[in-house]
C-alpha cells in the first residue's frame, strides 16, 4: 500500500525547530531535528531544553496518527506525558519515533520514544492522546 503523504510544512514552530520527517510506516512516523544552541536550557551546559523535545514528540505523534489514518484529519492534543530517561548529549540531532497503536472514532492513542543516536538508549518516552476536531 502506498504511503500516506505527511506534510509537516516549514512554517511556524515546526519550521523554527527544523523538524523533518525521515521515515514512516503503516502506523508510525519518525521525525528529527538538528541541535541548535538557541534551544538550550542554559548557556553553559548547552543541554537542550525539554520544550523542543516535547514539540518533536507532539509533532511526531500527529504524524503517526496521519500514517495510521491514511489521511489527514484535523486534531488537537488532549494530553501528553513524558518520562525523561537522561539528558540529550549537546550537539546531537534528536529523533522521535511515534506509533499510533489505536484509533477510535474521536480519539487516537500514541506512544513515542526520542533518542539522540541510539534507539536502544532513549532520552525520553512519552504517551499521548489526541482527539479529532473534524472529519
Amino acid at each position, binding site marked *: 500500500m502506498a504511503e500516506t503523504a505527511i506534510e509537516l510544512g516549514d512554517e511556524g514552530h515546526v519550521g523554527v525547530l527544523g523538524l523533518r520527517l525521515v521515515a514512516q510506516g503503516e502506523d508510525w512516523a519518525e521525525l528529527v531535528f538538528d541541535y541548535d544552541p538557541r534551544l*538550550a536550557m542554559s548557556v553553559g551546559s548547552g543541554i537542550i531544553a525539554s*520544550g523542543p523535545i*516535547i514539540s518533536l514528540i*507532539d509533532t511526531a505523534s500527529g504524524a503517526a496518527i496521519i500514517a495510521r489514518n491514511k489521511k489527514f484529519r484535523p486534531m488537537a492534543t488532549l*494530553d501528553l506525558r513524558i518520562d525523561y530517561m537522561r539528558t540529550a548529549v549537546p550537539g546531537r540531532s534528536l529523533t522521535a519515533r511515534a506509533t499510533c497503536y489505536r484509533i477510535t472514532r474521536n480519539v487516537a492513542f500514541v506512544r513515542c520514544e526520542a533518542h539522540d543516536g541510539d534507539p536502544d538508549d532513549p532520552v525520553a518516552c512519552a504517551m499521548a492522546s489526541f482527539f479529532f476536531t473534524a472529519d
Partner: protein
Amino acid sequence: MAVLPPYAEMIGARRDNSSGEPILTVGWQPDIEGRRGFIHGGVIAGLLEMACYEALHREFPDGVPPRMKPINVAVDYLRGGLMIETHAVAQIVRIGKRVANATALCWQNDRSKPIATARMHFLLDRDRAGTGQ
C-alpha cells in the same frame, strides 16, 4: 535563576513578577504557531515546564539551589492556545529531600479558563549545586 534559558528567549518568554507570582508570559509570534491559528502544544508544555523551574527556584531564596533534573511531566490540554498573550505560573506542591512535585497552569485572557495544566516531578541533587537546570 537570574537569566532565562536560550530556549525561553527563542519562544519569546519573559518574566512578569509584578503580581508577586513567578509568572512567565509569551507574546504571539509566528515562530510558536503549530496548527494554523494556534500555539504549538510543545511550546505550551515548554512554557509550563519553565514555570515549574521558576517556582522551584523560589524555594531556595538564600542559598544556591541544588541541581534540578526533570523526571517527568504530564500536560493536559484544555483549550486551543489562540494568537494572543499566554501566561504560565506554577506552584510547588511538595519539596522533599530528593524529589519535588510541581503543578502548573497556563492561561490567556482569563485565568479562570486555563488552556493547559501540568504536573511535574524533579529530582534534586543536593550534593551538587547547579545553575538549577
